[in-house]
């Protein structure tokens, strides 16, 4: 599902990723962890092709991202569910419209869009906030709306960047359980988090990034 081969990325002279190689199989659940500035968000941005690597090769769902034509990028992104660290909700649109927007790009009938949006929000316990605007929601609620938007199109791969950053511990574990459920249904899930307690509570393959390099890849977190 995801193949990284000797991927490097620098911002001006500051290296963010240094020769990363990894492979994630279809249907796997993987945590990506490491301290702030380790390169987790950069790696995710490369995976949803918001950026291109300086060198190396990235293949996601059979698409070589460096070689991908610009016009194919939107179609590739429609097959992904991305939960952004800063939510990236459309602030002029209601919660319902934020979710139906991705479905409208797929040209689904209005009724189907509304049905799916309602179900996704109900999954997140936010069905009563359908008509609210993002600014009327708490940080945790916005995070859950962003998650609902990522899940609603039933993607092949979910990339979540600190999805529990604004949630209380109970909600965080609920969200992780939801990701696990989706993963059991065959969706590949990659969650970037610096919350070690979360990883310990939901053991899964974990890639540990430090200073732009993968220093550990396995099921047990080292000290």
């Amino acid at each position, binding site marked *: 599902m995801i193949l990284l081969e000797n991927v490097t990325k620098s911002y001006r002279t500051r290296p963010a990723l240094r020769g990363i190689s990894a492979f994630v199989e279809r249907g796997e659940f993987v945590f990506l962890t490491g301290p702030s500035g380790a390169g987790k968000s950069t790696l995710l941005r490369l995976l*949803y092709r*918001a950026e291109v690597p300086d060198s190396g090769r990235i293949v996601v769902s059979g698409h070589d991202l460096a070689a991908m034509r*610009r*016009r194919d*990028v*939107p*179609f590739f*992104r*429609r097959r*992904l569910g*991305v939960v*952004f660290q800063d939510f*990236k*909700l*459309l*602030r*002029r649109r209601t919660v319902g419209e934020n979710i139906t*927007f*991705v479905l*409208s*790009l797929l*040209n689904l009938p*209005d009724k189907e869009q509304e049905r799916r949006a309602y179900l996704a929000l109900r999954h997140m316990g936010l069905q009563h906030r359908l008509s609210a605007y993002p600014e009327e929601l708490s940080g945790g609620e916005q995070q859950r709306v962003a998650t609902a*938007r990522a899940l609603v199109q039933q993607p092949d791969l979910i990339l979540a960047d600190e999805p529990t950053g604004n949630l209380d511990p109970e909600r965080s574990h609920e969200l992780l359980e939801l990701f696990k459920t989706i993963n059991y249904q065959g969706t590949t899930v990659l969650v970037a988090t610096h919350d070690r307690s979360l990883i310990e509570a939901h053991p899964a393959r974990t890639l540990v990034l430090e200073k732009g390099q993968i220093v550990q890849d396995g099921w047990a977190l080292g000290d």
Partner: protein
Amino acid sequence: MRHGAREVRRQLHESGATGLVAVLLVAVATTWGGALWLVRGWVADTLLARGRPANVVAAVRSAEAAAMVCNALTGSFPDVRCSASRPEDTKEELARWFPELSGVLLGLDAASFPSLLHAEVPMAEAARVSGWLRARGEVTLVENSRDWQGRLEKALSSVLLIGFTLTVALLAGCGVVVLLVVRLLVLEHSDEIAIMRLIGAREREIRLPYLACGALLGLVGGALGVALLFAISFVLKSHGIPVRGVTPLATVVPLLGATVGALGATLGLASLPEEP
């Protein structure tokens, strides 16, 4: 398609007061241009009517000379219809034209007035007939309606040229207003546009609603312009001014408005950078 229609509605709604200004400007510009077109048609049909024969009027020294010149003229130009009037007729006609001077005019000796020769000449021969008359020693003055029409046409052409230039300038102004409307919308939405790209919207899906919004503003303005033109045409006709129908303009004007709007929107969208 549904997505596009929804997005266009949203952009139209968000264009708000500035969008309304753009619509009104397009309406004013197209009404102005259309009204000029109506005036131009009226001038061509009524004042310049080139299909009609030209009138040549010549002042001749005496009634006898006028009758003689008239005979000679119809002999040389068989298509010309000629009539001669006596000095008394000239005096009475002038008195009818200038009623406030009629007392003075009618009191004057008829010998103070020339005999007049009236000729109805096919338009193509007006210049030749005038030249023929001027060459006659008995004829003291020749005026020809074709020359007057020519002078009138020249003056009106200048006025219409200025009017149509103003229309083009107004339409360019409308384009600039639409450009600003779209640029403001794009600037205001720049963060949302970046998010839309990240969640899979294509450039086309992002840009087309703005383009359609600009074109629709122009189209609505043009349609409003046509409605105003119908009203103007109705008022003119009810005052006995036989202007041409507005119907041919009913399609052209809204399309022109839409084109101006679309052009403005295209230029406004130039400020939206493509995703790197």
